């Protein structure tokens, strides 16, 4: 019965016409919207006859991408950024998850640390960049410090949320089976909080990726932020746009192919509802 009702949502004239047009193009669902953006972009470029130092055409950007790609420069810059991100994510998880467990499971620790945590959350990692540069110079350490700082807080916060959302009965049930604290941690808290931890990781990656780009703009020494900021100096708009597209694409790839599958897997597997 319920199938009938959902299949018969209130009729709307315009959408059904649009969907009729779109239905045969199902395979193009992802390409089509971008094709539209490129078309508009091209139209703007032509109509106002914009200088290349103001706006590059899609073709120029494509050529620049090929050139940079062929010489391996693009891969080099991208690899630098991705490596940084990977290291930062790993370290942040190693620090953030245990800390989150401690705060989530213990009232006293929570009282002591939560306020400070919230305060630190408000200071964006990038704000520490000048101080980090003074202390660690224009180095990878500087970038890592800033990115880890940015990443770790959302992971801690979401771990706390995850631990607190675990029904007390789960713990009580295992205790009555004679489980040790470690056992309960491993069998209840970790799997129970995992979906929320992954949510924190995704959010942290969103902040962290941007912090990394910003840090690379200031610190230079490789990375996609360096690429687009350096290209600015010579008004190489085509290069900037290549970098922007790559930054977006890489982020989506990491998010969709790495982080989201873990999230869906844990959610689907255990049927845990995210609160």
């Amino acid at each position, binding site marked *: *019965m319920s*199938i*009938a009702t959902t299949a018969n949502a209130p009729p709307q004239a315009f959408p059904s016409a649009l969907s009729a047009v779109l239905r045969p193009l199902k395979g193009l669902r992802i390409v089509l919207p971008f094709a539209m953006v490129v078309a508009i972009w091209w139209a703007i470029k032509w109509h106002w006859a914009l200088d290349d130092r103001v706006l590059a055409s899609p073709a120029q950007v494509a050529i620049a991408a090929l050139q940079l790609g062929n010489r391996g420069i693009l891969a080099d810059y991208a690899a630098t950024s991705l490596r940084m991100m990977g290291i930062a994510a790993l370290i942040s998880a190693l620090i953030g998850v245990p800390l989150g467990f401690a705060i989530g499971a213990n009232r006293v620790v929570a009282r002591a640390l939560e306020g400070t945590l919230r305060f630190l959350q408000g200071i964006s990692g990038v704000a520490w960049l000048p101080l980090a540069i003074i202390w660690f110079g224009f180095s990878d350490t500087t970038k890592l410090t800033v990115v880890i700082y940015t990443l770790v807080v959302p992971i801690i916060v979401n771990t706390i949320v995850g631990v607190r959302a675990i029904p007390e009965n789960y713990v009580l049930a295992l205790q009555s089976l004679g489980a040790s604290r470690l056992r309960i941690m491993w069998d209840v808290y970790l799997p129970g909080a995992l979906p929320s931890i992954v949510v924190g990781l995704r959010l942290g990656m969103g902040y962290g990726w941007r912090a990394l780009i910003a840090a690379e703009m200031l610190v230079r020494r490789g990375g996609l932020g360096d690429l687009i900021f350096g290209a600015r100096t010579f008004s190489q708009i085509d290069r900037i746009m290549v970098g922007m597209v790559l930054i977006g694409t890489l982020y989506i790839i990491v998010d969709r192919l790495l982080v989201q599958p873990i999230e869906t897997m844990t959610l689907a597997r255990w049927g845990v509802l995210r609160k």
Partner: protein
Amino acid sequence: MSGAVDKIEVAGFRHFFQSESGPVQATSIIDLRIQAGEFVTLVGPSGCGKTTLLKAIAGFIKPSEGRIFCNGRPVTGPGRDRGVVFQELAILPWRTVRRNIGHGLDIAGTKPAERDRIVARLIDLVGLRGFEDRYPHELSGGMRQRVAVARTWAADPDVILMDEPFAAVDAMTRLTLQEELARLCATTNKTVFFITHGVEEAVFLGDRVLVMTRRPGRIKAEIAVPRRTPGGRDWESFTADPEMQAICEQVLRLVREERGATLVAGDGASVVPAA
């Protein structure tokens, strides 16, 4: 109101819905007339198309075949002449009890003083005095359904359509709600079309009980329930009345023919679905 025009007339109704493997027939041809002041109940096995029929009368879905009239006018969409009480919780979480019950009157532009008078009377009738300013999440399941009933009554529609409104509340509360509904109808003399899969519920509430076949459903039998004394609509006198029990058995037999091995038993509304 003259008896000439039926409150609800369903003529040659038949419905299909789209599934991945093509159209599926939800109901066979159904004809139905409901007169003013009647309480008509419809029993049938799960998936027989009874909700489809109700949604069509409500105007949420367009019939594949046939016509539906309310007060002689064709139904083209949902409207305030046909109020619906849903099975799921359908009152708004962001409105208090008072504001939920008065919502239909607000929409109709009723003057505040008049609205408050009607709302206060219904709050008394459904026994929610003292809870006027609570939000739905602060109420029990039975109280929420009382709010939903009162909201529909307050809007004063010509016909009230109820889709297994008490299916989600516990057995004891259900008995009380059924008695309250019977009393409410006796006081206000409304036309009601009530869907259920509980045989005793159908006989207890209805002036007329319709039995549907399994999908694609059609109405296979109609049993008139003789009028009882207005004060005697309670479960104690109902179960003590041999005539009522005979009718229940008759309806149960008709329903069980459709359900094969399925049991319909107990308080009249709990159903053990077929394996």
